[in-house]
């Protein structure tokens, strides 16, 4: 794994390096007699590390959260598949053109129960990223997703979708094969799907390319993920004519998981390991497992008709507007995270 560190992570990593060094000394020189004082020093440093983590991560800016969502060591879709499911069987191809490796799908078991899994997959190396197109699916990716969702519906298997994409691939070939139509078809078919759909934003939730597997009954978001109509860089390129002003755009777009929760878009936020998911994949996956279990259990109680109605109701109410001709403003009371987390 790369030793990449974000600027605001560096003080913490330096402190941790000291701690490792000290522990090594303690292990070597255990018989020297000063073991007790070293033990005290180690404990002191550990406390400082924990405190520093808390300090840095309590007050993250939106832009810092975007950076965390793209951290090269962050677990991707297949890393969660490995940790949360058994009996994984990847299914390839859209039966029309190609197999898009940027959008992966297949069958597996969650708590022993068969489910359909979908998700955008990024690569860790340059080579892998070219293969995965940086997690930006082409039309054949969305058509594969659609095929697998229909398959899930036919065999009454819930769909679990992991969202992690900067957006759908913008390219000549994608346009030629109908990128817009492919995404649109996913939106409509997903809305009518007669099995439960659980979508989880695990990193980046960029635009229609993300939403195409996000028309769900329950939407979960990891703590350091974002979801919006456009990536902050593209937004900055349009609004400020400078793609380097992503930081400013991130603030204006209010794109973090917390914003989405407060705006009533997201059903539950999943806490990540201290310092972010990349620092502890297992702990983050564990938190996710517990939330998935709860929501799937609830959704499994519903009949196919109720599942479709529930999904319709979820999206039908989104969009704060007033009607000057009908008088009363519509909308729900504001939510605050984490106080009223249920």
């Amino acid at each position: 794994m790369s030793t990449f560190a974000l600027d605001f992570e560096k003080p913490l990593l330096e402190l941790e390096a000291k701690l490792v060094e000290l522990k090594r000394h303690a292990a070597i020189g255990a018989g020297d007699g000063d073991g007790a004082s070293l033990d005290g020093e180690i404990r002191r440093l550990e406390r400082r590390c924990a405190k520093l983590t808390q300090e840095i991560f309590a007050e993250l800016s939106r832009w810092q959260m975007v950076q965390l969502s793209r951290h090269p060591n962050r677990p991707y879709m297949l890393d969660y598949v490995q940790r949360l499911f058994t009996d994984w069987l990847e299914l390839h191809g859209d039966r029309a053109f190609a197999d898009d490796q940027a959008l992966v799908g297949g069958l597996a078991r969650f708590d022993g129960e068969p489910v359909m899994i979908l998700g955008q997959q990024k690569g860790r190396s340059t080579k892998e990223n070219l293969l995965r197109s940086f997690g930006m699916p082409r039309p054949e990716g969305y058509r594969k997703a659609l095929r697998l969702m229909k398959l899930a519906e036919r065999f009454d298997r819930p769909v679990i979708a992991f969202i992690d994409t900067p957006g759908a691939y913008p390219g000549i070939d994608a346009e030629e094969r109908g990128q817009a139509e492919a995404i649109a078809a996913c939106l409509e078919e997903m809305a009518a799907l007669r099995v439960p759909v659980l979508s989880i934003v695990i990193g980046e939730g960029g635009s229609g390319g993300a939403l195409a597997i996000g028309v769900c009954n329950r939407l979960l978001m990891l703590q350091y993920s974002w979801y919006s109509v456009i990536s902050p860089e593209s937004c900055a390129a349009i609004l400020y004519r400078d793609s380097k002003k992503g930081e400013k755009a991130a603030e204006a777009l209010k794109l973090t998981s917390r914003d989405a929760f407060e705006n009533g878009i997201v059903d539950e936020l999943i806490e990540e390991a201290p310092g972010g998911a990349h620092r502890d994949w297992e702990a983050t996956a564990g938190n996710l497992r517990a939330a998935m279990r709860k929501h799937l259990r609830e959704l499994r109680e519903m009949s196919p008709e109720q599942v479709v109605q529930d999904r319709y109701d979820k999206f039908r109410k989104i969009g704060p507007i007033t009607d000057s001709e009908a008088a009363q403003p519509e909308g729900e009371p504001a939510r605050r995270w984490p106080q009223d987390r249920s």
Partner: protein
Amino acid sequence: MAAWYHKVPAPKLPATDKRARMEGMWIKCDACGQIVYKQEVERNLEVCPKCGEHFPLPVRRRLDLVLDPGSFVEFDRGLESTDPLQFSDSKRYKDRLKASAKTAGEMEAFVGGTGRLAGREVSIGAFHFGFLGGSMGSVVGEKVTRLFERATERRIPAIIFSASGGARMQEAIFSLMQMAKSSAALARFRTVKKPYISVLLDPTTGGVAASFAFLGDIILAEPKALIGFAGPRVIEQTLRQKLPEGFQTSEFLLQHGMIDAIVHRKEMRDRLAQVLGLLA
């Protein structure tokens, strides 16, 4: 040696965002370069009489063009954005909305209602590109959703003319969710087995293209309209290569199997009536 004269730079022409530049009674067509008489263009449904280039048509004229005279009843006129994110860039979103309402002469980027087309009741709406680039925020999404819901309730066909840059950035995630909301309403409409005709105008891109605009039972387009998911500038910037001639035009889409037919503006009403006759 001192310059004995100062070169006077040619006055910079204002950036033309419309294809036709107004010059009093005459209009220069940016497609063929011919100077044409303004009144003639207007009589010709805002289509260049020389080369057939389709200029933008104001939203209400568009509806009048295809509906039986006096049959249009507008719905949801009073819907307004609440600016949920208190969005601001160089200008506050609220101010942008006000300014756009003034210059566009419309309160929002979409007008929807019911009317009769060749005697048949339809739930119909059209985008107004002049209002913030026809972008879809919560109000537009709600209007489109209600258009499908009305069509479902009354069991009548639905028709939408799209001309939009996509989801509205200033309402960020709320705009994005309108794509899902409107597509879900459309999914319900399918159960009444009435046709939904989507007409793509210049331009139809982004989140509007990637939702209900590309979900028509029948998809028509005006000639030479720009249609696609990613805008040409975004693609050029990403790939750093020139785009092929005619890329993302109606003709390109027809060739690639993405639309049913290209329809000239003056034939639009008859074609719509024909589709309704064959399917409704």
